[in-house]
């Protein structure tokens, strides 16, 4: 048996990955509550695996436990990225159960339970930061991007030298202003998308393959 026939394709791709970078990464979808993280996770999964991640709602903190799917392959022309995708609960600095009652009409018991689970979800999201290789940070492009949650997540990932891709979501809304997001965080790629309609998600996938496939040495916080 010749040396070339023994040089199987799998070995070759492993060597190429070792030289040129990572092609299997654990990617977290992060952001404040109600920016469309699970809508985006569902969009990615539906398009590449036919599956979905979880339920979505207009009421904040619908996702209160992290959910993940493994081995999702995204193709982009000649290159691809295989990833484990983690949909994290929204990170917030405050959670008031009365908001669920007064704004969204939940009863007191439901509201208290939702708020309690939401606090646990925030802690879980923060702990997942230790275990990921990159983040799609979802922001609502209709809102002020300089929230402390956004700034904290970005600062934390920069300190660990982990790649961040900002998805400027809800671009389909009239008041959307992705340019504001780009000027707020010029050090990171910003891709305007609508996770709801699928607008520009091709561009997001191209950027994910390019950005998360790069070779990096992960620092621990």
């Amino acid at each position, binding site marked *: 048996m010749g040396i070339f026939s023994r040089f199987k394709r799998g070995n070759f791709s492993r060597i190429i990955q070792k030289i040129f970078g990572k092609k299997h990464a654990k990617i977290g979808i992060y952001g404040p509550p109600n920016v469309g993280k699970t809508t985006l996770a569902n969009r990615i999964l539906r398009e590449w695996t036919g599956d979905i991640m979880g339920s979505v709602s207009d009421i904040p903190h619908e996702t209160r436990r992290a959910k993940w799917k493994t081995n999702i392959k995204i193709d982009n022309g000649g290159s691809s990225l295989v990833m484990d995708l983690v949909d994290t609960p929204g990170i917030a600095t405050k959670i008031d159960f009365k908001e669920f009652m007064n704004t969204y009409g939940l009863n007191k018991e439901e509201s208290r339970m939702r708020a309690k689970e939401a606090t646990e979800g925030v802690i879980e999201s923060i702990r997942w930061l230790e275990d990921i290789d990159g983040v799609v940070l979802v922001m609502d492009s209709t809102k002020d991007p300089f929230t402390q949650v956004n700034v904290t997540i970005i600062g*934390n990932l920069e*300190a660990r030298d982990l790649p961040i891709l900002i998805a400027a979501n809800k671009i389909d809304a009239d008041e959307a202003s992705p340019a504001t997001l780009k000027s707020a965080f010029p050090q990171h790629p910003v891709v305007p998308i609508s996770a709801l309609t699928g607008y520009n998600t091709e561009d997001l996938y191209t950027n994910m393959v390019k950005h998360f496939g790069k070779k990096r040495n992960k620092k621990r916080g």
Partner: protein
Amino acid sequence: MVKKDKGISFNLISRKKLNNFSSSEKLKYIMKEVRQGRILVLEHGLTPTEQTALIENTMKEIDHDTFIGIEMGGYGEEKTSFFQRVFGVIKKPRMTVIGPAHLLKMVHKDHDKIETTIIPGKGEN
């Protein structure tokens, strides 16, 4: 929520005092003050790791009848030059305002301005 009889306390905490704390002491101090209804302006803010730890601690402290969390706003870390990085000068966090979320509301923030307000009805004498 606890309504303060004597208005709202704003405490401006010096860089020197903050530098004398370890990270965990700093976070404990902040949480204690904020839980007592004080708004803190830190001359020297928190590192990103301290910020996430503070959020985590806040979530553990939330008691839905007396404490709904914090409001926090700070400027990004100071940029360091190439030569500073070569000589090991690390990025330093800048001024940060932190307060209980039932009293303090962040109105607007950008690169140059942090605009906050006291929630109506909470800061009256």
